[in-house]
């Protein structure tokens, strides 16, 4: 039974087609990564699932109980961390629920500070906690770690993977990073020219060891599908010839 079903979904902005006839079933409890180049329409797809954008055509079946974490944590800077997490919740125990969620993301100690004092990784954890307290069925991640440094990113991937295992959500993650996609997802959807180019299954369950030898060829294949050859394999093609360069960049003084 699919949790999210997209049928013939199209979207155009001012006559320019961004998505064309996208069909996609996302099974309950699965972790799907959507990869694509800039402008491939992957963020638009996520925004349509989240209900932030209306499709120009097609049907979408989804659940009400969904939460989104964006690339920027998008915390309200004038509310404390715990108030951000419980923002919009009803009920007496909202503060306790929020504190529990902060414990889960490992930031209980920062409950009462202002968001602007947090590092990028911490802010992203708070944003995850804010999603957690809504007890979602579906978690949408829009390049959640794109702005983090490489080491923090590894930590955050581990956290998201563990939370996914613990809560049994359906997760849809949009990312640029094929390594991230193969580390975490069950299936990787390659988006290009507004349509699904290919769906690549990933064996095992995430979060996986990034040095797992099975992952490198997968990542390589995804990169080729995205039109980026393996780093280092590509021959260096510069339009300027070395001789011209040498003359043009001769010492000035």
């Amino acid at each position, binding site marked *: 039974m699919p949790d999210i079903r997209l049928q013939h979904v199209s979207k155009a902005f001012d006559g320019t087609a961004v998505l064309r006839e996208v069909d996609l079933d996302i099974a309950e409890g699965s972790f799907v990564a959507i990869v694509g180049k800039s402008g491939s329409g992957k963020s638009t797809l996520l925004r349509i699932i989240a209900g932030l954008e209306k499709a120009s055509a097609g049907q979408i079946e989804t659940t009400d109980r969904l939460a989104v974490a964006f690339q920027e944590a998008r915390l309200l800077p004038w509310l404390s961390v715990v108030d951000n997490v419980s923002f919009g919740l009803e009920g007496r125990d909202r503060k306790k629920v929020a504190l529990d969620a902060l414990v889960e993301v490992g930031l209980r100690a920062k409950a009462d500070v202002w968001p602007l004092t947090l590092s990028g990784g911490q802010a992203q954890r708070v944003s995850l906690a804010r999603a957690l307290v809504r007890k979602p069925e579906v978690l949408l991640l829009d390049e959640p770690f794109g702005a983090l440094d*490489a080491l923090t990113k590894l930590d955050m991937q581990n956290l998201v993977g563990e939370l996914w295992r613990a809560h049994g959500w359906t997760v849809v993650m949009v990312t640029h990073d094929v390594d991230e996609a193969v580390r975490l997802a069950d299936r990787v959807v390659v988006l290009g020219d507004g349509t699904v180019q290919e769906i690549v299954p990933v064996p095992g369950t995430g979060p996986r060891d990034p040095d797992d030898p099975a992952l490198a060829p997968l990542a390589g294949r995804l990169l080729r599908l995205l039109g980026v050859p393996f*780093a280092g*394999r*590509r021959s260096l093609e510069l339009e300027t010839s070395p001789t011209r360069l040498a003359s043009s960049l001769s010492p*000035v003084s």
Partner: protein
Amino acid sequence: MALANEAVARPRSVSLDVHAVSHAYDLEGRVLDVLDGIELAVRPGEFVALLGPSGSGKSTLLRLAAGLERPRAGALLEDGQPITAPDPSRILVFQDPTLFPWRTVWWNVATGLEARGLLAKHRHRVDDALALVKLETFANAYPHQLSGGMAQRVAIARALVNDPQLLLLDEPFGKLDSLTRLSMQNELLSLWQKVGFTALLVTHDVEEALLLANRVIVFSDRPARIVAEIAVDKPHPRRRDDPELVELRRAVLATLGISADV
């Protein structure tokens, strides 16, 4: 070694010597030690990467090498000459492109020449530098019209137009999306191979360091000391899935105290 030969073939690159450099900042009355007795010799034309945890003082070392600050102790030498002030022979490229938003791409690149009064004679160099990063068509665009990758390319062109002998790179690709980052790494590598500057790269990304550098220096937590030095004796181009590199990567991550396994 091949590298030494290359260095001979590159008379326009310089060496950088860091001798017993320590540095600290005053922070609200407290002294915050950042660097502790750093000893490092970078050969002409070499590509060295600095790896370390957040806030470990890697960027500080680059600021010292650029001459933006003077170390509290120790000395930094460029080709044997002490570094005391910023000089266009050493250019620092920041994590943010820090383009001047009120100047067009062309004028951003021209800044260094203009500041030194060389612009009138060397206008073509600006065009050449833009061609080098394949942004000729964007010469009249303003920075806010550029994507992150394009802006970082402009920042690199702005550095290269001055014919730097030492390029200091402070996480130059840290804020780019990963696909753009891969192609920018390739471009940087090819520029280094063709232009022949000495490069010192600060990065968080172990893979990036291993793919690009001849030598990887690992810093400890603050105050930073050098805890490991790894020579990467592989010719370029390198493959990401090269088993030796994968093994090195695991070792480096372990040194940094981060387990990639779950």
